[in-house]
């Protein structure tokens, strides 16, 4: 039982981080139709900026987090300006490759700036644990789950209860009609890239305390976020969150009860099965990707 509870909570926490990454990715995809392959490296960069702000600038941890989120929002806007806006009307292949190039640049910058040796980022709760049904759960995991829940709720409200959110969704479903309604598409696209950058940084600072921080930190979460989006049918916030939690749980429970060597594989096997059997996603109805 303890083992199950422990694996379950870890799975939910990991899934929650994937959900935050996936939401950023979904945001850009919905507003612009683009798949942003730089999302993973934005997560990594966010964690490194937080480490820099906490150690070199000696800011308090929450201040460091805020710096990371703000900086990554700016980086998101830069990517939009340099790697997306100039080629918006070109083939989707070109746009995807351009985001890949942006990912490569970010990765190179991180290596130049912080080197390749692994570092750590403290969590605000240190290594404290709490006992739940006999299982020792790191408080960081509960923090991740809590922050993600708040974040998802805030995003949901933003999308469904504000004019900005309605405009993003309008833009996502019909670009031309959105323009005819006076929605400023260029500004919206910058804003969504910025918001997605901030979300990546948040995912970075949440996940960094649970593992060693290397330049590959964000790559796995990005892949799982892709998988989560596919499970969720590339559609709603709810679908993506459910998909991400499923990914986290499959990974942890599979790793715990089957073979830990292949823990990383199970989510992708699940995803490939979904693609094979129900290409529009478990919860999705219709796919409107531009790729």
């Amino acid at each position, binding site marked *: 039982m303890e083992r199950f509870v422990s694996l379950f909570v870890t799975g939910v926490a990991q899934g929650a981080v994937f959900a935050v990454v996936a939401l950023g990715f979904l945001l850009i995809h919905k507003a612009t139709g683009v798949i942003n392959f730089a999302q993973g490296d934005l997560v990594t960069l966010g964690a490194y900026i937080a480490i820099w702000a906490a150690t070199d600038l000696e800011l308090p941890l929450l201040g460091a987090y805020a710096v990371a989120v703000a900086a990554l929002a700016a980086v998101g806007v830069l990517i939009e300006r340099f790697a997306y806006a100039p080629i918006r009307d070109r083939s989707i292949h070109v746009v995807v490759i351009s985001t890949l190039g942006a990912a490569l640049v970010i990765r190179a910058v991180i290596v130049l700036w912080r080197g390749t040796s692994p570092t750590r980022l403290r969590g605000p709760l240190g290594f404290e644990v709490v006992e739940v049904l006999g299982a020792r759960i790191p408080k960081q995991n509960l923090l991740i789950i809590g922050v993600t829940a708040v974040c998802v709720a805030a995003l949901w409200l933003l999308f469904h209860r504000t*004019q900005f959110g*309605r*405009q993003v*969704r*309008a833009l*996502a*479903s*019909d670009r*031309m*009609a*959105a*323009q*005819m*309604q*006076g*929605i*400023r*598409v*260029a500004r919206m696209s910058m804003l969504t890239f910025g918001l997605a950058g901030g979300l990546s940084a948040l995912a970075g600072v949440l996940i960094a305390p649970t593992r060693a921080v290397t330049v590959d930190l964000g790559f796995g979460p990005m892949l799982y976020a892709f998988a989560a989006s596919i499970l969720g049918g590339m559609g709603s916030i709810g679908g993506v969150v459910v998909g991400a939690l499923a990914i986290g749980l499959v990974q942890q429970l599979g790793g715990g009860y089957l073979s830990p060597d292949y823990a990383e594989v199970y989510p992708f096997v699940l995803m490939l099965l979904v693609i094979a059997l129900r290409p529009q996603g478990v919860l999705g109805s219709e796919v409107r990707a531009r790729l």
Partner: protein
Amino acid sequence: MLEVRDLRVTYGTTVAVDGVDLDVGGGEIVALLGPNGAGKTSTLRAISRVVPATGTITFDGEPVGALRPEAVARRGLVHVPEGRHVFPNLSVHENLLVGRSARDGRPSAFEVDDVYDLFPELVPLRSRAGWALSGGEQQMVAIGRGLLAAPRLLLLDEPSLGLAPTVVDRVYAVLTEVAGRVPLLLVEQDTERALRLAARAYVMAAGRVALSGPAGEVAGRDELVASYLGRTATVRDGA
């Protein structure tokens, strides 16, 4: 209010609009008629800048020919497109709210509640998603969304397209009701209804204006029927 001079739209090597001049005065209802492929929709799209065109377009004394489509909409030149283009993933209510994006601080003659008064059919559908609406309901949402943008001129593209006659009656009843408050440039295949609503009309054939004048006069001309039945040659001779 709206002045279009020598408008040309080409797709590749096809000339869709071939030197059209067109005026809409303040408070006027103008119909733009003609058969399929005559260039009506392209003319409208060129005015709202969603397709590239040459020529000059002046709105309220200001040139708008170089603006982005969203900027044109924000000046109050609002386009209700052919095929309605209701946002499929937004509810009826949200579609209407998005319509307010183009106001840019202008006072609006219509608020969301006014649209529900005009189209009481939409009230029970408030939270239904756009994709789940029938064609007629979508047309009502599209018109309502256009009215909420505080339009100074509403460009309406084929509001009767693909709708059952009773629904067309409803849509035209509402258009008649708002006609006094919002100037309209109406593209329509249903000649008769359009001419009943409009004060003036232009008839297009093969990318050019073949005929124009007060609605009553246009309705009496044989060229109108001829252009609809594909006898474009007759129209050109007359033009």
